[in-house]
């Protein structure tokens, strides 16, 4: 009947779902701070609008589905989705872009699948992938690392105009630079990697900015691990596999491949490993399954980065593995106590269960 609960005994792990989500939000702060510091107000306008849209859409969907609104909103899960999508979009995205992304995330990926806990796919990544496919233009316009306060920083007013959708695409294009992964992806065939980097293909400070952002996400990830909000299996398996594949590729062709460190810190790998892939609802569930799942994401990210059309690939890799998660679960069940071997596959070996 279990009348006692761990939350009476103050363990490290937060004992309620709302608590889990709160810690998730808290852990995004270093990453958000670093992003804002390097890329300016646009990060905050993204987040602010995504949050408003997220909560509004969640409330509307709950009402439509006849679920308790305020009690469910209090689980903070819509806010988490909003934050994850908000930081993934190019800073200073226009409101309609964010709104479309949030509709795809909250309405389609989450509630049409039955709400929190039932979604097959990671909502934030569904939103992101949809935007990437439908609006490749605006989605590739990352501003340069002009900083929040520096001399080159874009003033808040301009960012707001951009958010309102009043800035033309040409102006935007002129203002933005490529992300490191993007730039490297479009490196001319003839150029060796060394020559490419020597030619300053990126706005000044971009590489450093991306590294610092990645390290800030790592700090947040460490917090999540310490609080046991997430398990170590997925991030370790994902980053390990990613590094391994990157090392193999690099060792095979150092002049045309990015170094493992470049792949680890140059894009969304760290953020994805700790904040996206670990989304418990859409990931594999068993500990062993999580290892497989994380490894699959790491391998897919590298496969798409190396051979696909998209420079970064965390969103697609995660979605593909979301799709595979139920199968992984069937094939990675631990050996149950009292059984000679683990059961594999979908069919039960009939009759062994009770007698």
């Amino acid at each position: 009947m279990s009348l006692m609960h761990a939350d009476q005994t103050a363990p490290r792990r937060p004992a309620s779902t709302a608590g889990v989500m709160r810690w998730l939000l808290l852990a995004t702060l270093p990453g958000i701070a670093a992003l804002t510091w390097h890329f300016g107000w646009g990060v905050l306008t993204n987040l602010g609008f995504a949050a408003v849209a997220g909560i509004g859409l969640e409330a509307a969907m709950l009402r439509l589905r006849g679920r308790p609104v305020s009690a469910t909103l209090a689980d903070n899960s819509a806010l988490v989705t909003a934050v994850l999508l908000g930081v993934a979009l190019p800073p200073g995205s226009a409101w309609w872009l964010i709104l479309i992304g949030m509709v795809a995330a909250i309405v389609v990926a989450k509630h049409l699948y039955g709400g929190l806990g039932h979604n097959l796919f990671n909502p934030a990544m569904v939103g992101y992938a949809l935007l990437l496919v439908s609006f490749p233009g605006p989605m590739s316009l990352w501003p340069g690392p002009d900083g929040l306060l520096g001399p080159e920083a874009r003033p808040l007013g301009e960012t707001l105009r951009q958010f309102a959708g009043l800035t033309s695409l040409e102006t935007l294009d002129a203002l933005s630079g490529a992300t490191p992964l993007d730039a490297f992806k479009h490196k001319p065939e003839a150029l060796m990697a060394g020559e490419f980097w020597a030619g300053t293909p990126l706005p000044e400070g971009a590489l450093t900015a991306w590294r610092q952002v990645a390290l800030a996400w790592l700090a947040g990830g460490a917090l999540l691990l310490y609080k046991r909000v997430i398990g170590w299996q997925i991030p370790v398996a994902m980053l390990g596999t990613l590094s391994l594949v990157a090392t193999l590729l690099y060792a095979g062709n150092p002049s045309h491949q990015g170094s493992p460190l470049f792949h680890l810190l140059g894009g969304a790998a760290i953020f994805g490993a700790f904040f996206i892939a670990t989304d418990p609802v859409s990931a594999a569930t068993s500990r062993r399954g999580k290892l497989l799942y994380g490894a699959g994401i790491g391998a897919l990210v590298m496969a798409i980065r190396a051979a696909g059309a998209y420079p970064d690939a965390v969103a697609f890799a995660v979605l593909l593995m979301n799709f595979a998660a139920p199968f992984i679960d069937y094939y990675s069940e631990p050996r149950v106590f009292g059984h000679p071997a683990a059961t594999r596959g979908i069919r039960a070996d009939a009759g062994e269960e009770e007698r």
Partner: protein
Amino acid sequence: MAERFDFPGGITPPTRKARSTRAPLRTAPLPRRVILPLDQHAGAPAEPCVELGQRVRTGERIARASGLISAALHASITGRVAAIEEHALPAGDGRRGPCIVIEGEGEDDWLTLPSLDWRQAPQATLLERLDAAGVVGLGGAAFPTQVKARIRELHAIDTLVVNAAECEPYISADDLTLRHFAADVLEGARLMARLAGAERILVGIEDDKPEALQALQAAREASLAEAMPVEIRPIATRYPSGGERQLIKRLLGREVPSGGLPADVGTHCHNPGTLRAALAAVRDGVPLVERVVTLTGEALARPGNVVARLGTPIGELLHFAGLDPRALHRLVMGGPMMGEALGELASPVVKATNCLIAATRQELPDPPPEQPCIRCGACEEVCPASLLPQQLYWFARGREHDKAERFHLFDCIECGACSYVCPSHIPLEQYYRAAKQAIRAQRREAARADHARHRFEFRQARLAREQAEKEARRAARKRAAAPAARRPAGGDTQGTAPAADLRGLRIAHSAATAAERKAEKALARAAESGEADPASLDDLETQLATARENRQAAEARLQAARDAEEKPA
């Protein structure tokens, strides 16, 4: 201390035992009136064998065991049978059931059985005594001890495990039993070990009971002259070490197979209170009419352990322990993890009542509302059966029973460790229990149709057995009448090729024996699970009886063939 073996998962909730272990064991006042449910053990309910108004003495049998798995019931006070009626039972669902109510005289007039020497008495006598004294497992499952001891007839038992882990928070009945009666417990263990044919006794005790451990060690020192070796093994405190399977794994490294019994890995597991009761039944001839009950919880002014007569109304005992009714928020029988919340203070103490918790609101608060599963995997980490509780929950909730079984629903021991850690406060094990019940109900429906067939098969088997025995007798007579007759060449019941026939009969005989063993185990398991209804037990008993008939028939045929073989000329 490093342990060689361990079970997976587990949790370490606050034990909250100190409250009930500070006071020494007390004897509760003799109740004026007792209510004795007929169904307070695993298996079929007992059948009353007293009449209304009849005077009964303490220890006198008032209901007899019915069926293979059942236990007798005895008057726990001296007085008159006031009623045989439906009464509230100490169960979470508030169910009612037939009870014998005895109105006491205020005096204890004991009726005991003759004392037996367990070292000398034949096994059958000892088993009969355990049966007659109504001894059942006092750890909570209330499985008839005599039946458990009999299962061994088909298994080789090498180790008798004394389960003194008492891993659930609050409960300290075994702890106090050991502190006061360690020598009796060990002697009871020797008795049961002898019955089981075990070579050694292994006591598993969690290390949060230093006094009990000390008492055990002293008792062991004092009885070193005995032949049976006793080993006392303290283990680190972790829930659910006291689960039979978990303890056996931890002590011996053996895994009871899924759907199997401890006997399958050569062990019998008994709890200290049971061993003491078994010894009392044999050595002193005292039937099971009282037990040690932990009375605890913050709504009690004088918590502690008491020796209480069975049938004592729970409210009376709690009153004795200083219950503050205004502070009482929740009454639990058993522990806070696996126990049941009771609604009725009027329901009685039964054989399975190891602990009563009168908790205040702060102490065991109402769980917050259940939230969706976020598949964080916390439950998986603590599951002692290595299940995937999050998957089971999914399928149990969606009534996808075959998938739930695919993920080994029936290996769940309902320990509640998963619920304890679930951040979404999902009462997981309640879902599992409901799913199991639903599946069992479906199976019962299917079995009902089978039952008629099983009865028919039983009659056929009996006829076949009688026929086989008759033929065997006839053949024997024929041989006796014509000892010099030539070995028959044909036309005999043995057929034309006796040697090959003998082999076939031997195979048939071992197959029949195996079938009997299987039927016996199926019955024992069903009864031990505590969830089988009388009808399905009845069906299993019919199947077992059929298997017995078949085995006897095979035996008779085999014997006849052997005789024919031996003296053909």
